[in-house]
């Protein structure tokens, strides 16, 4: 369940921050307010009247504008057309472009963006300007409440300053802004009041000025901040060997600003951080799915030319990748377990281009057996499996591929406790056998449980890796929200 009892009150002319950890239900709440789906229980009132939007368009008519992380603009249309989409000034069905452009220019000026030309095509604009167009659209529809979901997560700092100026102008005009963010210092800069969500519930609300950071962190975590000492993690059975993968200053702006790390044989290095902080971009660069703009990668002590990276080459070098998006990228759902497991190394069960189906079955079975996949056999299409079993198949593919370095992006996302145990047991076994594992994971207790070393990604910058025993849940959260 994503939401389980939320009380929220937002006043005109205030910026209200909605804060909470990954998965606390912030985005779900936003979608609900914006009419994407109705609540199972509870009621909403807007301006003293019952508010139950049928859909997104209805919510917009009622005065609730949602500014998505993935902006919803028409790239082929002009700025003015996007701002007044669905409400074009017209006479006899003909758009009055002059009036439309004047109106858009007025609205842009109110937000302090008069330099933005209303006649430009949105496709030509960068992200900060697109965001301004979308906020302007909210203004045009005379929105009472503007919902902003992590508007700064992909912005450079100078654009953040301009965005805040825009938000203050909105507030000054009496609009209410509901602002989702992870970043406490940012919340303090822009918001007046706050509500903390934890596990789908609203657990605290109040004036930001009267609340300390420690109090907010405690509410987000759901318990008192302990002394910042080691979590009693006991391990040491694994032998950490020589460096396999060395990364220096790897960057792919704006997601990834800088990452430096060394990954050794037998090591599980965990990467903590908020969703959208650049962790996935780091793994994708390392696996050759995206080309880094700067930085060096060394594998087994030899430079890997970053301008000729490709996933095929990285697989041949001995890297394996587990995508965070198993539906769209990780698995071929209509194909069988055996096909999915052997896909990265079909040469193990084929000769002269002919796949040996029985060999494929045997190899697939061997790969997934330790993971305990529940299925009717290796020919079962993956889409018939549960989420946990699908993820096991994706992990099984890595076992079959047998790479030296495993890049795992959220390996236990959306899987049940049993599958989680099976997967992490295998990951630990792989490390014990001399593999190196780089794991992105949003669930902090899991990181502390599984990893030898942990680094935290904050706004595209990776901290120096430290021994897991040197981190606590509190210090990881603080680092992730940019306060450590």
């Amino acid at each position, binding site marked *: 369940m994503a939401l389980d009892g939320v009380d929220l009150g937002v006043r005109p002319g205030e910026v209200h921050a909605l804060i909470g950890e990954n998965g606390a239900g912030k985005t779900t709440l936003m979608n609900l307010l914006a009419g994407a789906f109705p609540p199972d229980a509870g009621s909403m009132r807007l301006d003293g009247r019952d508010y139950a939007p049928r859909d997104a368009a209805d919510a917009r008519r009622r005065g609730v504008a949602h500014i998505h992380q993935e902006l919803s603009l028409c790239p082929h249309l002009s700025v003015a057309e996007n701002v007044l989409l669905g409400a074009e000034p017209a006479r006899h069905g003909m758009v009055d472009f002059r009036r439309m452009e004047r109106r858009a220019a007025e609205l842009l000026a109110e937000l302090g963006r008069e330099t933005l030309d209303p006649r430009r095509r949105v496709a030509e604009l960068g992200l900060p300007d697109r965001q301004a167009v979308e906020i302007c*659209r909210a203004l045009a529809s005379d929105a009472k409440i503007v919902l902003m979901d992590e508007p700064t997560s992909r912005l450079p700092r100078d654009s953040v300053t301009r965005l805040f100026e825009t938000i203050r102008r909105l507030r000054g005009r009496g609009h209410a802004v509901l602002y989702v963010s992870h970043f406490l210092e940012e919340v303090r800069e822009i918001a007046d009041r706050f509500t903390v969500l934890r596990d789908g519930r609203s657990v605290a609300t109040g004036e930001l000025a009267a609340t300390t950071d420690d109090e907010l962190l405690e509410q987000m975590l759901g318990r008192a901040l302990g002394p910042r000492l080691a979590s009693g993690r006991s391990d040491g059975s694994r032998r950490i060997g020589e460096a396999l993968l060395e990364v220096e200053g790897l960057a792919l702006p704006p997601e990834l600003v800088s990452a430096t790390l060394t990954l050794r044989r037998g090591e599980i290095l965990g990467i903590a951080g908020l969703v959208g902080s650049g962790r996935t971009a780091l793994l994708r660069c390392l696996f050759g799915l995206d080309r880094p703009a700067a930085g060096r990668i060394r594998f087994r002590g030899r430079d890997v030319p970053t301008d000729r990276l490709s996933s095929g080459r990285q697989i041949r070098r001995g890297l394996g990748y587990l995508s965070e998006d198993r539906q769209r990228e990780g698995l071929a759902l209509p194909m069988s377990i055996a096909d999915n497991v052997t896909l990265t190394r079909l040469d193990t069960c084929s000769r002269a281009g002919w796949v040996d189906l029985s060999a494929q079955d045997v190899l697939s079975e061997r790969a997934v057996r330790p993971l305990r996949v529940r299925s009717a056999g290796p020919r079962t299409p993956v889409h018939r499996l549960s989420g946990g079993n699908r993820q096991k198949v994706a992990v099984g593919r890595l076992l079959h591929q047998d790479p030296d370095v495993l890049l795992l992006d959220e390996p236990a996302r959306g899987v049940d406790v049993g599958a989680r145990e099976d997967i992490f047991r295998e990951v630990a076994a792989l490390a014990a056998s001399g593999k190196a594992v780089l794991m992105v994971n949003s669930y902090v207790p899991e990181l502390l449980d599984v990893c030898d070393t942990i680094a935290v990604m904050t706004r595209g910058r990776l901290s120096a890796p430290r021994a897991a025993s040197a981190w606590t849940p509190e210090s990881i959260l603080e680092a992730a929200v940019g306060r450590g």
Partner: protein
Amino acid sequence: MADPARSRFRRLVRLFGPAAGLVAVAVLFALLTGAPERYLSAANLRVVLAQTVIVGLGAIGMTLIMISGGIDLSVGASVALTSVIAALALRGGASPAAAAALGVAAGGAVGLVNGAAITGLRIVPFIATLGMLGIARGAAKYFAEEQTVNAPATWLNELAVTFPSRAWLLVAPGVWITLGLAVAMAVVLRRTVFGRHVFAVGSNEAAARACGIAVDRVKVAVYVVGGLLFGLAGVMQMSRLRQGDPTVAVGVELDVIAAVVIGGGSLAGGEGSVGGSMIGALVMSMLRNGCQQMGWPTYVQEIIIGVIIVLAVAADRYRASRAAD
């Protein structure tokens, strides 16, 4: 440069590629035939224009549909069906105007069914109109009883004649009708609320919906208007052949789509212009005509047109990627 001028300038630049292609084809065949005075003669250009009418009308409708992010594979079948219906109406004693109106309306009805299937049954346009391709073709054969339907001579036949009896018309009346409708459609797309909503739906459907645009209604309207134009193309087909032929116009939809794509339209929606599509239609007519004059077999034309389509789109992608940098 003032800004409205800049956007108009940019629109002209986008037409430059297709126009350059048209000039290239004209020059190439003028040289190849060794008789530019014949290939580019007024008489031959009139032939080319008259031959462009059906694909041109289809391309006007297809431009609208493709900008909205859709596609219609049932153009050829609709042309055949409406040519049969118009011919049957004439044979049954209807006035030429009534027969033409009936043919156009039949095209609109086909479009309505397409639009209803796409929005009501949530079938992707490719499949919905692929189904209609078979249905309309079959219906045409049923109504025509699997043979051509001879239509009595009327003034409708004048629409498509290459050398009209009223010499001041210069070209076939159908050419003027096509040109007029192309201008009208260009204005609708550029200047009306409906036209901008069509662009919005093709550009980002979710955003259009969130902004309160009745996306389904826009889509149905797009297929109906497209269907009306395909119906008119059917009437032109009937007027040219002086009969309704249920087996005619097989594969015309591919020529029509090619014309739109050569003219800068995109299968992904949000892009395209009627002017570009008209140039695209002319490029293909000039090619066909040139190949005929060279005495080349039709397979050569087919290969050349295939290559041109791929090159036109590749050039457009290249330009787009340069613009993105």
